[in-house]
């Protein structure tokens, strides 16, 4: 079953984020099983790019979530902000550079690198293909697992939001090994790790350029979020490959998806800087293919940082 997706507008200055988070949780009737002792918040820190680029989760929204939950469910909740190392990104530096160390001190919460967790390999079958993942075990133990993705486009998968952010929980840093089966891998990891709540950071969203969309979305169902998010980003969700696979694999269901709050998603769709040819995967692939071919014919040099070996 799909679920309710709440949409709330906030201010780009971040002053009213806590209130906006509270409002969006009310819209989706979020009532967690109490008592809540531990909360894990999975952010998206894909690389050392500032939140204003639209690539990484804004620490202000994480601060707003912590404040809101403490106010509602108790000051003693133990929070962890979690992320795993990426192929090029090291979590310890991302936490430092993107303002999370400062946030952790201010809010008295823990920063945790999932790549250093107790790891167990788990296998799932997606589209008839078996995929193995290294799963950080502590994620399965928290009372509340919150996914805080970005709203952004991605050349490889068209969109990246709730389901793709869970892919970032894979403990093995060289996630590039999954890139040839990225759509299946996104669905596969979501079969194992199921967040209780997704709150999307759309304060600054990322299309072909960043945009202050000032949007916060939430749902208890990650698939429902992605279905709506892809429409905001100008894509037909039924043409987003991993969403199609998710339906086939019964990870997502269209029935029951309902928008509450800012129901006019056309308003956000009009603002969103949609993908064009020059921000598409086709253009990038063409550029690199042309360069490689030119190198082969002429015997010229391709600077090593542009090589795709």
């Amino acid at each position, binding site marked *: 079953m799909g679920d309710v997706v709440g949409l709330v507008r906030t201010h780009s200055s971040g002053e009213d984020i806590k209130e906006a988070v509270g409002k969006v949780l009310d819209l989706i009737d979020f009532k967690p099983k109490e008592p809540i002792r531990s909360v894990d918040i999975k952010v998206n820190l894909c690389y050392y790019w*500032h939140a204003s680029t639209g690539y990484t989760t804004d620490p202000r929204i994480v601060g707003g979530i912590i404040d809101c939950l403490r106010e509602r469910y108790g000051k003693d909740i133990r929070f962890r902000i979690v992320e795993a190392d990426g*192929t*090029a*990104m090291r979590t310890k530096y991302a936490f430092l550079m993107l303002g999370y160390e400062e946030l952790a001190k201010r809010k008295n919460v823990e920063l945790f690198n999932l790549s250093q967790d107790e790891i167990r390999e788990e296998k799932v079958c997606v589209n008839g293909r078996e995929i193995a993942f290294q799963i950080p075990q502590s994620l399965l133990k928290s009372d509340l697992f919150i996914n805080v993705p970005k709203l952004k486009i991605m050349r490889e998968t068209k969109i990246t939001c709730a389901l793709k952010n869970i892919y970032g929980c894979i403990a093995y840093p060289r996630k*590039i090994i999954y890139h040839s089966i990225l759509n299946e891998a996104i669905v596969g990891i979501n079969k194992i790790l199921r967040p209780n709540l997704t709150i999307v950071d759309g304060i600054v969203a990322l299309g072909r350029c960043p945009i202050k969309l000032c949007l916060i979305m939430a749902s208890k169902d990650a698939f429902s979020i992605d279905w709506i998010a892809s429409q905001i980003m100008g894509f037909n969700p039924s043409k987003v490959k991993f969403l199609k696979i998710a339906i086939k694999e019964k990870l997502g269901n269209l029935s029951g998806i309902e928008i509450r709050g800012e129901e006019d998603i056309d308003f956000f769709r009009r603002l969103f800087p949609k993908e064009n040819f020059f921000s598409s995967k086709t253009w990038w692939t063409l550029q690199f293919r042309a360069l490689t071919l030119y190198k082969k014919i*002429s015997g010229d*040099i391709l600077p090593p*940082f542009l090589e*795709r070996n």
Partner: protein
Amino acid sequence: MNVGVIGLGHMGMLHLMNCRHIDGVKVTAAADTSKAALKRAESFGVKNLFTDYHDLLNGYPKVNAVIISLPNFLHFESVKSALESGIDVFVEKPLAVSVKEGREIAKLVEKSGRKLMVGHCMRFIEAAEKLKAALDEGRIGDLEVVTLEQILNGPFAHGAVPTPVPEWWFDPQKTGGGVLLDLGYHMIDLFRFFVGEESKVLFSWFEHKFNLPMEDGAILVLKSCKSNVRGIINVGWFQKSVFPEYNFRMILHGCAGYISSDNLVPKNIYLHAIKEGAKNILRKIIGKKIEPLSYSYYYEAYYKELRQFFDCIKWDCDTPVSAVDGLKTLEIIEEAYQNFDKNHAYGGFG
């Protein structure tokens, strides 16, 4: 001429590839701690491979020159060892991580009689050469102000194949400084290149947007000591760079007018690449030498600087960027850091 390449990261590999297009130069040896990097060098026909660069310096067949592309903190020791072994040196910028080290290198160069060139590649960008020529021809009258800007992702740039940023970039003891020693070093050198006289620091300001122990944003105001030309330098590591865009500009303001690199660099980098690429293919077809990296505009400077280094060895003349040039740049950087610290200590700024 037998050449050794020490350090096979992106820059070292680029230099190695460039050498293959320079007549009379053969890379016979390479050193790196990474076995994968050495294997890569071997695929380019490099026969003698070492995991310790000292073995390269003392190895056989003896190399006439080395290209050093090691992390900043290893420049001093490796340059010193090469000069003491009687080998000419091309060292990536910065010359060293401190004025003290830079001075010692300059002394060693003088004592050894060997050639040393520092990789101040920005001087070799066509736009910089054109600006300098226009200035020398008097087209803008007396030079009054030079504005230099370079804002990129620096060491945090995301390559086509994602690889982690080397750990040493996060350690200020190993980098020797932040963006000022990285991109600012080039801009200071360009100021010196245009003005051609001693300069001092009027103002320096540093920012830490990414909470790193070294600065990721720097603004500097310089003044030349004789003709009072002011230099405004603005550098940063804070911007997500998108290939093939290159956020770099130079403006020379004179009494008779101004010239900007924005008017000299290709308006459309894609058209430029197609045009230059086609020329190279044609050269290849008719059996002429290609002009390496001309399609990329900015990267061509790396080839040009290296070619000049080998020409200087061949013709026994002074290198266009000497150890003293590297040292003078380091002196300005150290002065800028001290200036900022002093003003902070006295509560002058911030």
